[in-house]
């Protein structure tokens, strides 16, 4: 144990960066995941199963495998880099892309379940009441699926805060750009700064507990106090 202070500017920077990454990632996940979940809940056939499998892959793949392919896809020689004109690896944007892919199933699955639980009837009723499909989606489907969307958002946020392997593979540890909480804790432990590691790890433990508890309480409320 070599350090004196347990809290410094670098830790705050890390914390803010992590929250920023999780927030941006969650917003992107909701924008991408909700239509995807809707499609998965309504479509039929083989394509739907193929896409559903792709979405679920991050649950079973080791983060290093996912990170490895993402690194190649976003690296200097990839077609993506050629299209964008710059590489995404070792940038904040790259981290967002990686986090979105990594957390996709945790957002899509609860929303899809909520859409499926709703059944076809509410949309049929809306159609017989002159609501166009878009109108019905926003005024009926989204409000009815709100608990599932909420669960998906919280899970996506928490999962992004906690990710490590993918970030390490595609982001490295550039302070203020890609050095997030989980990587910082790893660094502290490697350099034997156990006190600082305790502060961050304990903080994360507490935060996770509060987030999940809040989620359950709010979900219970959204479900109208049933259960």
């Amino acid at each position, binding site marked *: 144990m070599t350090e004196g202070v347990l809290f410094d500017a670098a830790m705050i920077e890390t914390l803010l960066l992590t929250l920023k990454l999780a927030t941006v990632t969650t917003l992107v996940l909701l924008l991408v995941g909700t239509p995807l979940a809707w499609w998965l809940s309504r479509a039929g056939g083989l394509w739907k199963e193929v896409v559903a499998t792709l979405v679920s892959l991050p649950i079973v793949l080791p983060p290093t495998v996912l990170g490895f392919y993402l690194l190649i896809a976003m690296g200097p020689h990839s077609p993506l880099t050629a299209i964008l004109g710059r590489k995404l690896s070792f940038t904040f944007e790259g981290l967002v892309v990686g986090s979105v892919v990594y957390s996709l199933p945790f957002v899509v699955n609860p929303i899809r379940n909520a859409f499926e639980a709703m059944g076809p*009837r509410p949309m049929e009723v809306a159609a017989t*009441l002159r609501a166009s499909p878009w109108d019905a989606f926003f005024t009926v489907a989204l409000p009815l699926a709100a608990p599932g969307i909420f669960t998906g958002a919280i899970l996506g946020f928490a999962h992004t805060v906690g990710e490590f392997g993918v970030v390490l593979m595609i982001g490295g540890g550039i302070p203020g750009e890609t050095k997030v909480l989980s990587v910082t804790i790893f660094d502290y432990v490697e350099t034997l700064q156990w006190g600082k590691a305790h502060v961050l790890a304990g903080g994360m433990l507490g935060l996770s507990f509060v987030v999940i508890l809040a989620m359950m309480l709010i979900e219970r409320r959204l479900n109208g106090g049933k259960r």
Partner: protein
Amino acid sequence: MIEAAFSGRLGSFALDAAFRVPARGITALFGPSGCGKTTVLRGIAGLMRLPGGRLRVNEEVWQDGRRFVPPHRRAIGYVFQEASLFPHLSVQSNLTFGLRRHRGPAQIGLEEVVDLLGIAPLFDRPVPLLSGGERQRVAIGRALLSQPRLLLMDEPLSALDRMSKDEILPYLERLHASLSIPVIYISHDIAEVERLADTLVLMEAGRVRAQGPLAELLADPALPLIHMPEPAAVLEGAVIGTDPDYGLSEISVPGGSLVVPGNLGPLGMRRRVRVPASDVSLGRHAPADTTILNALPARIEGAEQTSDHQVTVRLRLGEDGHGAALLARVSRKSWDRLALRAGETVVARLKAVSLADPARDIAPSEPVPPP
């Protein structure tokens, strides 16, 4: 006119149903469960695209060949078996969901619907706490407020218990009497049909077995209706007199007139009575001393042996036999003893005549008393 023709295979079910009914009054789609009634109704709503379907409502073609108007562009109201209210919206927001999306002037206003269906006391209650009957009333109001030119009802009463049914039926009858929107109504309950329907489309295993005015089909010997355990005739006519002292009214039906208990409303008002076949007996002469109020000349059209010991006789009111259809269920012994034959004129004695629509005389502004 509403002209519909739907055909095609749905899995193992073959549908080939075509009918043409007037775009007024209530048309009942009647038949056993699984005969394709709901499929046809969903096809009319556009909730299901049946390939090879044709549908024309008055001057508008909603489906023909490649033309298919999506459901939200069809001026329909749809009442599902379960009320299917939106649980995330209040009673008021549910009611006005379709109204808010209607373009142009509204023919049916919120107040009118709230009065008609007695919804006012439900406004402050959360949707999940409404009873089955209350929900269905809100759902009917919601459909009406979307300003439909055709109202489709898929067994709106079948998910309800007896009490809730009796609570809603009077509202449906009032709807029938006070609004001019044509209704297509699915039912597998003949009592409901006798009470509400003007036109009947009889379905069987994906096909239309018969279609026409209710009174005619009820007495058609080729159809299964006459062989039901309790066949009845439905007669409709205008009130031509009342006798407040004895509490009776007289209505004129084709081929005669009937004395019915109760004050049936102002002269000229059209009412419907139901005469169960088992309450009609036949004789060659008018009875001399009897407590029976209704004894009418009628001509025998034919007779079917319904069981080993019973005969169902088809009659038409009037000496000339051109009046309304009537059914009489008599024992085979009496039938043989009187040696009655088709074409003969007899006197039909009606033991009981009851209103088919008992609640219609209640003024729309009054609350409906519990039955």
